[in-house]
């Protein structure tokens, strides 16, 4: 404790952040108090928030030490750091979801040029396996699926006991990854012998590949229908 106070005196930091494990609840608050007496920090960082089901630390720290929570962090991955917004957190606690954060996360991954290209392809009914794979990967980049869905108002409650497998897309990814670039761009090119090879490559059997192809065709049909709708029938998410 003395060391950190010495460092503070020597370097005169612009920000002093106190990092605390949110799962420790009241203990977190007590340590915060002790550190604040010695260090007079400027903000709090709550870590391991993903494992905290109670929220005691988040709710009492500001009141106790009168210092704001500046960041919350959950998980090991480097991009799992969020600026702390009290209002959004309150909405989440009350089960109202957090659409703002969801939209921000989507925007961070959103690539305008790519989206335009994709829109064009959908309009011409040329959506192929590669595009599908790209889409899947973009969703995955936004983070843990269950967390994402929990940000949609009302959904969080509904899925709290449902185990959503982040690997759900893995099989599909494996299948597409086992295709050659030509096959990915030409979904109609899949002859039985090609399918056999893809099945071997992805560890699936042919029935699964056929099922996936059928789903993919249905998806394309849906896109076609939307294209043919009056008023241009643009996909709501594609606008901009």
């Amino acid at each position, binding site marked *: 404790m003395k060391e950190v106070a010495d460092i503070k005196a020597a370097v005169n930091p612009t*920000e*002093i952040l*106190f*990092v605390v494990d949110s799962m420790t609840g*009241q203990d977190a608050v007590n340590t915060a108090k002790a550190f604040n007496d010695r260090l007079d920090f400027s903000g709090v960082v709550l870590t391991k928030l993903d494992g905290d089901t*109670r929220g005691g630390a988040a709710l009492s720290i500001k009141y106790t030490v009168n210092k704001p929570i500046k960041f919350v962090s959950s998980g090991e991955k480097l991009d*799992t750091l969020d600026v702390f917004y009290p209002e959004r957190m309150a909405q989440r606690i009350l*089960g109202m979801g957090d659409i703002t954060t969801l939209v921000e996360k989507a925007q961070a991954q959103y690539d305008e040029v790519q989206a335009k290209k994709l829109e064009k392809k959908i309009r011409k009914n040329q959506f192929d396996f590669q595009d599908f794979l790209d889409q899947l990967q973009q969703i995955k980049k936004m983070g843990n699926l269950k967390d994402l869905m929990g940000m949609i108002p009302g959904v969080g409650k509904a899925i709290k006991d449902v185990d959503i497998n982040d690997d759900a897309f893995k099989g599909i990814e494996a299948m597409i990854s086992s295709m050659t670039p030509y096959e990915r761009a030409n979904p109609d090119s899949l002859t039985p012998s090609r399918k056999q090879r893809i099945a071997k490559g992805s560890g699936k059997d042919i029935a699964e590949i056929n099922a996936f192809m059928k789903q993919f065709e249905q998806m394309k049909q849906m896109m076609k229908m939307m294209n043919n709708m009056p008023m241009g029938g643009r996909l709501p998410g594609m606008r901009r």
Partner: protein
Amino acid sequence: MFQNLSEKLESAFKNLKGESRINDLNIANTVKDIRRALIDADVNFKIAKEFTDKVKDKAVGEKVINAISPGQLMVKIVQDELTELMGGTEAAFNITGNPAVILIAGLQGSGKTTFTGKLANYLKSQKGKSPLLVAADIYRPAAIDQLTVLAEQVGVDIYSERENKDAVAIALNAIKEAKA
């Protein structure tokens, strides 16, 4: 996150179902349940009490307009108070200065090193800064290795002096290095 708290608050609001207006009588149970939910969530008793007193004061006498039910009104009041309790608006993060020095402190195992990596990533990718990580932990050599790996992953520089046991000197040298 916060599933337990969410569930308990939700059931607290259910008590108000079917009431046409909020009065001392029908709010008592809800307020008690909210307080219990907060205490179960490991919120200090004093804070929980003060919180529910405020909610009660706001709720009693609040006129319920036709369009919304007392339950909904309660949710709104609790939401406002929760926001207030957690700080109201988001806090500014000051990174001005040349260099801006950020001191990160905390107990062992609280996640300092991991957070440092994340913060470096945030500053680099979202704020366009080029942070220099400084390992001033003189007790745990492995912390330096961990930070080095993180710095590599993020793609930022790191400053460390493995032999130096004087944390203050390391910090000062690092600032010199950052200015250079």
